[in-house]
């Protein structure tokens, strides 16, 4: 048991090493998360400085809510997809998967080790973005209201959930397809184009409750940010999110076990 835990810890550490040491990739992921936040905040700061009468301060609760959307619905999930795809198919792409299989180690263990490492990287990147967003929220609040501690904590938890779910799904899809580009294209297309369109389609009615984005928006703490309101119970929302997290990674695990190495 102790041996298994040691090996599991080592394998997670190894996956973390191979992700974190891919410098170009990490720079891209950070840029995906930070660049929109920095540009948007900078624009608002300049706007307010140039005409305070027409434009309010860049910070405050309004900025905080928008920052949550960017980190939890748009650019955060894009980064989570990139990280999940790299974690799920990186060893296949490099040809190292076969060597790992040749050690006799369980393929399920090889799959499972990808998840904590990818989540650790995702959470770190999102935490950096969140810290920047908080700094702008409080630093440039002017006379505006700022979020309470409880809202900040709830928001952090929600960001972890939203991005963690997407990251795990990306690992599952990448392990299933064995293709990083395919996974990235499909999931970003889904996240940024198809899913928002379906969410807007009121003719779908309660079927939209099955959309992950709808669930995540429903669970988002704090004031609404203009996204379409979907009503469901918290239990249903959690069940839908759990289903997304269960099905695609399960398919990825199955493919990892059956894939020709």
């Amino acid at each position: 048991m102790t041996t298994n835990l040691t090996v599991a810890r080592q394998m997670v550490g190894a996956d973390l090493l191979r992700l974190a040491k891919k410098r170009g990739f990490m720079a891209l992921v950070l840029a995906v998360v930070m660049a929109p936040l920095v540009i948007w905040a900078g624009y608002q700061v300049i706007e307010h400085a140039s005409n305070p009468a027409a434009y309010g301060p860049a910070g405050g609760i309004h900025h905080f809510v928008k920052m949550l959307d960017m980190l939890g619905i748009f650019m955060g999930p894009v980064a989570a997809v990139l990280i999940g795809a790299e974690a799920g198919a990186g060893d296949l792409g490099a040809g190292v998967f076969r060597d790992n299989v040749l050690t006799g180690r369980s393929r399920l263990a090889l799959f499972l080790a990808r998840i904590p490492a990818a989540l650790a990287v995702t959470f770190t990147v999102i935490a950096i973005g969140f810290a920047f967003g908080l700094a702008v929220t409080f630093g440039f609040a002017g006379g505006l209201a700022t979020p309470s501690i409880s809202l900040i904590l709830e928001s952090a938890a929600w960001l972890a959930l939203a991005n963690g779910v997407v990251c795990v799904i990306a690992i599952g899809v990448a392990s299933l397809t064995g293709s990083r580009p395919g996974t990235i294209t499909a999931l970003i297309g889904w996240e940024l184009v198809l899913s928002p369109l379906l969410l807007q389609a009121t003719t779908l009615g309660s079927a939209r409750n099955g959309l992950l984005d709808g669930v995540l928006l429903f669970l988002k703490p704090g004031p609404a940010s203009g996204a379409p309101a979907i009503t469901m119970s918290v239990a249903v929302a959690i069940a839908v999110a759990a289903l997304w997290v269960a099905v695609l990674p399960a398919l990825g695990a199955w493919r990892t076990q059956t894939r020709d190495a």
Partner: protein
Amino acid sequence: MCKRASGVILIGMRNTHANRDNGGPAVQIAEHGAPAVQTVGLTKHFGHRAAVEDVSLTVPRGTAYGFLGHNGAGKTTLIRMLLGLTRASAGSATVLGLPVPAQRARALARVGAIVEEPSFYPHLTGRENLKVAAAVRGPGVRTRIDEVLHRVGLENRANDRVGTYSLGMRQRLGVARCLLSDPELLILDEPMNGLDPGGMLDMRRMIRTLVEEEGRTVFISSHLLDEVEKTCDVAAIIDGGRVIAQGPIDELVSGGGGELVVECDDAERAAGLLAGDTAVHELRIEHGGLRMRLLAPEQAGEINARLVSAGVVVSRLEPVRHSLEERFLEMTTRLEVAA
């Protein structure tokens, strides 16, 4: 010592390089447990095409074993079956005495393997790649990283990114990765591929050291006949998915007996004396001397004695040394003609 059965030339397992050149202990399959690898009737079909057909191999422990064949002969498919990467259509295999795939995990814990070519994360250094590999192999393996890097002569480049390595360095790093778990058996698929002459020499020396000084078994698949002849003690030749010969390199080369050239004062009389001898085959007069094939190399002395006692003056008596390449082409051509 040499008999043919079902188109396979079976040659006795004795007189290996290791025994001959280094005075090491003879390979005793029965005394030291199961062979490193044993297959019985191993077969793999892809649809209607047979990639490997009824292959029965015995790889003795403590030897460098060459698995020879043209590209596409079935070498890698057989290795993949041994390592449990693909299932056999029929037959059975054991690795270090353990049946695969039934006890694959236990067997592979004692095996280091490179299939096709060693792959690494190019953005990580050699040392970091070994850290990643060690993590999967088990607790405590990480402590061997420096040792194996030194073992393959990569300690000075260990902190460089693998993306900057030459093919030869990647092959050596592949061997280092194999050695991490201190394996009893190494299975190397085409380890000489793409290496320059210096790289081949390094690889050959490394393999000989692994066998002679460390007592490991090294199973090498290759289409480079000359390298196998120089590196291995024992070999099997596979053609069209079937093993057509296996045994110690010397005996494969000599065909189990060997060819003999005799120069004497009266070739016609000598030929008449040897014509009815059951030990002599394919006797012919060539360039004023005799050329013949013997059942066993030791019979050369008897031939000499018979000729001399009959009053024939023998001025030269020399076994003909063939290369493995010549024998390989001879065997595969013979099968093509028979087909």
